[in-house]
């Protein structure tokens, strides 16, 4: 399968190199939705301060991005700028020498150490992508339904289930808009969204990495137990409900609560008229310290085979500027700049969500660092078992055992 690909790729590269000359950059990205944003807002702003450089934003749809990018990098036809997934997927590219080292590039100084971790080598000594933005996990709620039923935003898990019971009893709307057909939401939104309150954020995550804690510990099992309790509040037939179905359900005002992340703010602003607010994942008991999943999600690096590295560096330094942080935070609503600049967030829901950074402790998605490296892939396993738990097909403790066993198989400290 590879040989003809090489041939075609080389031929393509030859054709394309005819067009490429100094001053031209192309961006590889999975954010197809951001194309107008880049073309109408971000790039024109960049051109103002950097005349002479033209940039093309050429995204690939998210599920295909990693494989398409890998193929293009192997063939030498990838763009100059590579949008980086956090942690292992990018680290893998860096290890194979596809990403230029960014050490010493001035823009990096604008980011706190914690924002850079997602794109550094394990020892933290070399950085291969410029941090761009993070997403915060939480819940959206339909303000009208809450007002009609006289409900207050829940703070503890007990409150949360009381609210769900009341919505269910009223019978007008689905209490929770969530399905398990696509599987990823049960892990990336639910498990790693509500879990930090159970495993105390970074404490639990680092505990797993160092081997001091195990998935079979109560902190993790209780997260799955809570998830299983959600099942009666989901729509009938939620096992076949996709992410798009859930979005439509909440967007049409037919569901009261929507577990999600900040990336969905812009979707509902553009595609629905529903008036919604956000609340953070409920804590287990009143007075508990709260934790949020503040996931470093998107960064940008330079293709080590790019012919135009000088301009690419100029571009990355612009990504680290206050101007970009302001534009990206306020135009790509729900993606929060990771830089240390003080940015005023205009969207009320986004503002609410970013304010949680001041009230709670931030952590990243549980398995994003190191834990996804081996075989079986923990991310894929988590999608699977968490969906089984929500489908009431698997007991929480069995889910924990399966994940722990898969982890211990390749990771020495977890044994």
């Amino acid at each position: 399968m590879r040989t003809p690909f090489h041939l075609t790729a080389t031929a393509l590269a030859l054709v394309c190199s005819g067009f490429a000359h100094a001053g031209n950059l192309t961006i590889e990205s999975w954010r197809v939705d951001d194309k107008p944003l880049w073309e109408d807002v971000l790039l024109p702003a960049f051109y103002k301060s950097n005349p002479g450089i033209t940039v093309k934003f050429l995204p690939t749809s998210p599920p295909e991005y990693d494989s398409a990018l890998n193929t293009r990098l192997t063939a030498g036809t990838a763009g100059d700028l590579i949008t980086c997934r956090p942690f292992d997927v990018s680290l893998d590219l860096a290890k194979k020498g596809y990403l230029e080292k960014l050490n010493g590039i001035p823009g990096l100084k604008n980011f706190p150490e914690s924002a850079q971790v997602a794109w550094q080598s394990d020892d933290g000594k070399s950085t291969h992508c410029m941090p761009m933005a993070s997403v915060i996990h939480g819940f959206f709620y339909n303000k009208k339904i809450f007002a009609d039923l006289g409900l207050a935003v829940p703070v503890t898990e007990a409150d949360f289930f009381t609210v769900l019971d009341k919505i269910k009893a009223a019978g007008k709307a689905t209490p929770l808009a969530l399905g398990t057909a696509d599987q990823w939401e049960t892990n990336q939104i639910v498990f790693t969204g509500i879990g930090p309150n159970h495993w105390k954020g970074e404490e639990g995550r680092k505990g797993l990495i160092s081997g001091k804690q195990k998935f079979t510990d109560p902190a993790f099992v209780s997260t799955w137990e809570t998830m299983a309790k959600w099942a009666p509040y989901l729509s009938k037939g939620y096992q076949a409900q996709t992410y798009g179905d859930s979005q439509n359900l909440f967007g049409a005002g037919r569901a009261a609560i929507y577990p999600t992340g900040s990336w969905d703010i812009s979707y509902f602003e553009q595609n629905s008229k529903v008036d919604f607010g956000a609340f953070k994942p409920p804590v287990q008991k009143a007075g508990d310290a709260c934790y949020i999943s503040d996931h470093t999600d998107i960064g940008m690096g330079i293709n080590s085979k790019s012919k135009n590295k000088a301009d690419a560096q100029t571009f990355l330094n612009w990504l680290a500027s206050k101007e970009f942080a302001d534009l990206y935070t306020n135009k790509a609503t729900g993606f929060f700049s990771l830089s240390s600049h003080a940015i005023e967030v205009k969207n009320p829901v986004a503002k609410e969500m970013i304010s949680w950074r001041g009230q709670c402790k931030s952590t990243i998605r549980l398995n994003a660092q190191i834990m996804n490296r081996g075989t079986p892939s923990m991310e894929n396993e988590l999608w699977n078992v968490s969906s089984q738990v929500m489908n009431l097909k698997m007991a929480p403790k069995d889910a924990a055992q399966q994940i722990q066993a898969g982890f211990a198989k390749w990771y020495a400290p977890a044994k």
Partner: protein
Amino acid sequence: MKQGFSWRVLVFITPALLVYAVFSALPLLDTLRLGLYSTDENGLRSFSGLANYATILHDPQWSASFWNAMLNNLKFFGIHMLVQNPIGLLLAALLSLRKVRFATFYRTVFFLPTLLSVVIVGFVWQLILSPLWGVSERLLGWVGLESWFAPWLGLESSALTTLSLMSVWQFVGMPMMLIYAAMIAIPEDVIEAAVVEGASPWRIFYEIRLPLILPTLGLVTILTFVANFNAFDLIYTVKGGLAGPNYSTDILGTLFYRTFFGYQSQVASPTMGAAVATLMFLVILLGVGFYFLLVQRRLQRFAL
């Protein structure tokens, strides 16, 4: 009659042979070769013999997913054989009757889904079967079977069958057309002779038509086999690369995709993927070999 080597034949064959060699044979050989290598974490490839195959077949995790995919693939194939091909045969038999009105119209209608993109088929059926917006529950309600409705695509017990039936719906036109072509090729006088002898239509079908189209049925079987063991697109479109719930719809194609290209955080492993692809190739090769050696030879006796 003995003929010398014809250079003209070579001229005509060469272009096709070249294209086939470059785009089919070479990549296939390269895949077989690639399966014998393994990649370390820095992307360096080294020869490792049959290590990948040992992992797939002996490592509990890998062999569980491999055999799960294989079993699902067999079920997928089984449902096609039990549903798609008999329906195709039935439709072809009905269409080839002499006094069917609008036969061309029906033929077109049954064949149409075959021309649709799999993505559209997946999307449309997902909508029809959706518990939230779908029409299936209401349609069942009209005949009083509302309680039978379930989120079929989301349940471990029914997802694979539902997907197989979607695929059957799409591709039933293929066996229908092939069998239909074979049926109308049966010489009229053979049938007429039977009619004159007083054979019933059922007997004509069973004792004349069926034996005469057996080679085509064999062909349909082997085409279905190859297509099913190469299948990937419908499952990927509807259930994604993880083929949920709980890998109940995972077939060799989706397993290969996950391994070779990676999926979400699963890092791609081209060498391991090539090993999976080789195993798929072997399965298909065995099936086709079995067919040519044991089945087709016997069938040819019936050919006119």
